[in-house]
């Protein structure tokens, strides 16, 4: 199996040698279809976690016949263990704005929004100040496009794209049925390209350095690099931009404390990789995908407590709209508590796994569907810790 050592990359945070507005200015001299082809060619996939090819998303939105279209930057970063988008917005906001502007030009939108989670309101004064200047700059280069910021109010589910639209429309953040997909009917029912903060910055940088440069990094299925948020039992907690394609083993050798027994890849909604699978698990779309959250646990940690934390999180953050998720989250939580207290036989965990699998099929949105990821991986690999 081919793997790479974690290689540090500097694309997202680099600022020297260019003015984001100038990059937009030269981008809008190109044909939108050429920009789309370059994005598709680069292999860039959404960096929020779902990994949909960015070029295709832009293409679908461009192909829709509508006078009003929108581009939205999803900055509702709520996944436990993720903090990269805050760092990106804090350090290189103009690159995010520029990514929005290029996307707006490409798909034919005149309005762009940044949906910023309420927990990051302290970023607003600085962001607003820079945004006013940037919007003026867009006018000067003759692009009919304007960006505004909208705030969230402490609901994890609003990171789900259709729930985010509902929230922006002044409603409860309850996910919609799909299809129709956002590229057809998103914000206010209009075609909408919604991208993660990091994705927009990569799109911007591809526009600047070209798809070829980007493609040199990563693997066939996971092109480029990715910003990782690293926390837990590690001496090196923080933000790192790394080339995609490394194994969990490579990652742990670099970032572990020498006693790592498990890595939770992709936050609470991701999967838990135990030590015995470190070597064979690739961090990327061909292995275990991640929005960037990497939480390390050493042998002193109780995986029961970890799972309990995650389930409490989902129980509280479930929007309550569909039964599999609303009731399922509660029952999984109650279930492991009952097994721990000895009120239920250990074999009850198998029933709970079935429930988690049912949620994966039957829940309406990604939240309910993904609870099975941590649940099944932790219960399967750390069964003794859940029972005793």
């Amino acid at each position, binding site marked *: 199996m081919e793997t790479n050592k974690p290689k540090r990359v500097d694309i997202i945070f680099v600022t020297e040698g260019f003015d984001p507005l100038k990059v937009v200015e030269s981008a809008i001299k190109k044909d939108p279809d050429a920009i789309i082809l370059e994005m598709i060619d680069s292999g860039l996939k959404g960096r929020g976690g779902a990994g949909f090819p960015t070029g295709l998303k832009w293409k679908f939105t461009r192909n829709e016949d509508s006078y009003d279209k929108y581009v939205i930057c999803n900055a509702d970063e709520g996944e436990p263990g993720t903090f990269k988008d805050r760092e990106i917005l804090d350090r290189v906001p103009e690159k995010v704005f520029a990514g929005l502007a290029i996307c707006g030009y490409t798909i034919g939108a005149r309005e762009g929004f940044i949906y910023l989670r309420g927990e990051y309101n302290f970023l607003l004064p600085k962001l607003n100040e820079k945004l006013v200047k940037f919007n003026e700059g867009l006018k000067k280069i003759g692009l009919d496009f304007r960006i505004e910021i909208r705030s969230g109010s402490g609901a994890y589910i609003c990171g789900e794209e259709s729930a985010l639209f509902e929230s922006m429309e002044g409603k409860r953040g309850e996910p919609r049925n799909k299809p129709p997909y956002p590229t057809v009917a998103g914000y206010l029912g209009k075609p909408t390209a919604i991208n993660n903060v990091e994705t927009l910055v990569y799109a911007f940088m591809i526009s600047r350095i070209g798809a070829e440069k980007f493609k040199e990094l990563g693997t066939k299925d996971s092109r480029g690099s990715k910003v990782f948020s690293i*926390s*837990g039992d590690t001496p090196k907690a923080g933000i790192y931009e790394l080339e995609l394609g490394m194994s969990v083993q490579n990652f742990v050798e670099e970032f572990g404390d020498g006693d790592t027994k498990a890595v939770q890849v992709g936050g609470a909604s991701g999967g838990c990789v135990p030590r015995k699978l470190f070597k064979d698990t690739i961090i990327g779309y061909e292995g275990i995908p991640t929005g960037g959250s990497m*939480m390390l646990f050493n042998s002193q940690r109780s995986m029961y407590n970890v799972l309990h934390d995650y389930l409490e999180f989902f129980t509280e953050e479930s929007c309550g709209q569909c039964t599999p998720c609303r009731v399922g989250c509660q029952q999984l939580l109650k279930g492991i508590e009952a097994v721990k207290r000895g009120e239920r036989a250990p074999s009850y965990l198998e029933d709970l796994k079935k429930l988690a699998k049912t949620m994966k099929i039957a829940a309406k949105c990604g939240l309910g569907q993904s609870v099975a990821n941590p649940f099944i991986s932790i219960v399967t690999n750390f069964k003794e810790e859940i029972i005793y």
Partner: protein
Amino acid sequence: MADVQQIINDATQVYGKERKALMPILQAVVKEKNYLDDQDMISIAKALDLSAAEVFGTASFYTFLDTVPRGKYVIRVCKTISCHMAGKDEIIHSIEELLKIKIGETTVDKQFTLLTANCLGWCHKGPVMLINDEIFPELTPQKAVEIIAKYRAE
């Protein structure tokens, strides 16, 4: 106390009177008085030509849009896994001791409300708390107490 009607009027000037203006208006009122009472929601409903139930439905969905009275300073201690591992329990305990309230309660002088929050996005610098919109990472029980004492002195 701030004039809520004035806040609503100002916000509709910026965001308009369509339903999509609802979140910014609710947020503007909460920013000023930290919660929404029934009369606030009725006034907002009138301004946007919505039913009060629709406004309550939206407001009550969001953790940060409180519909019960809160203190002048709302303390939210992150309780999610990384902060849990970094010692959020000790932080909460020290704040409870200092303010003589439990999670979910408000001090008698209506200055502080203590709440927990799900992941605040500072997992590499936990434990962490928000006081209104201000963030305080890398807490120790001692630091948390000092920060709150400073707010108290204001």
